[in-house]
């Protein structure tokens, strides 16, 4: 069970690190630090995002859990999702503010489509990530 939880946590770390790497390469190319050809190296973090997504959110059904309507959840699941959403809201707000500040500070101006897409993904994935990180992995028999 501990191994399963550790695998899930590793997948989460890989998922978000891949995203950071993707954004770093993209903006370094945009700023002219790297030539345009370097954009092709973004395939590596992109595949990291896709594969780790399955382990972190897909296999555990956590994505489905955090995206279900409240009427489809029982009281324990509702409580779990509510707590995770509350925590993720605080984290997301801080990340958003830091991103906007950094973007203005380095002179990129207002946030663009790529960063907006990342923030959208972050907003949707954070509750599931918080549950995946904290919850013990227990394989229940029916």
């Amino acid at each position: 069970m501990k191994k399963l939880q550790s695998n899930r946590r590793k997948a989460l770390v890989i998922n978000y690190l891949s995203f950071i790497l993707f954004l770093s390469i993209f903006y370094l190319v945009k700023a002219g630090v790297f030539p345009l050809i370097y954009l092709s190296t973004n395939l590596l973090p992109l595949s990291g995002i896709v594969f780790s997504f399955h382990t972190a959110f897909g296999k555990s059904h956590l994505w489905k859990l955090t995206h279900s309507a409240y009427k489809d959840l029982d009281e324990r699941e509702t409580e779990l999702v509510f707590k995770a959403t509350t925590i993720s809201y605080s984290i997301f707000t801080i990340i958003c503010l830091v991103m906007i500040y950094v973007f203005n500070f380095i002179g990129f101006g207002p946030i663009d489509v790529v960063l907006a897409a990342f923030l959208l993904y972050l907003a949707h994935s954070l509750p599931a990530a918080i549950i995946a990180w904290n919850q013990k992995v227990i394989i229940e028999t029916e």
Partner: protein
Amino acid sequence: MKSRKIFNRIAVLRRERNVSRKELADSIGVNFQTIGYLEREEYNPSLDLAFKLSEYFNLPVEMIFSTQPMKPLSVELKNLKGGNDEKIAE
């Protein structure tokens, strides 16, 4: 607010009646994983869920849930019977 731990006999009652987690979960309208959480005493049910379980097992709520670690059902029934006998003797 940190709530105290609620002990229960769901696992014993379920096994005694030969009911699967899935069957019990479907009857009371929860996910079968929630039954696992309840059995491991990792989740305190709401009053509504506690009453649903009590109706399902046809037992009073206090026979299924307690704030104290629960004695085996046989011991509790024996104590209950002993108490009743004493009352009758009086």
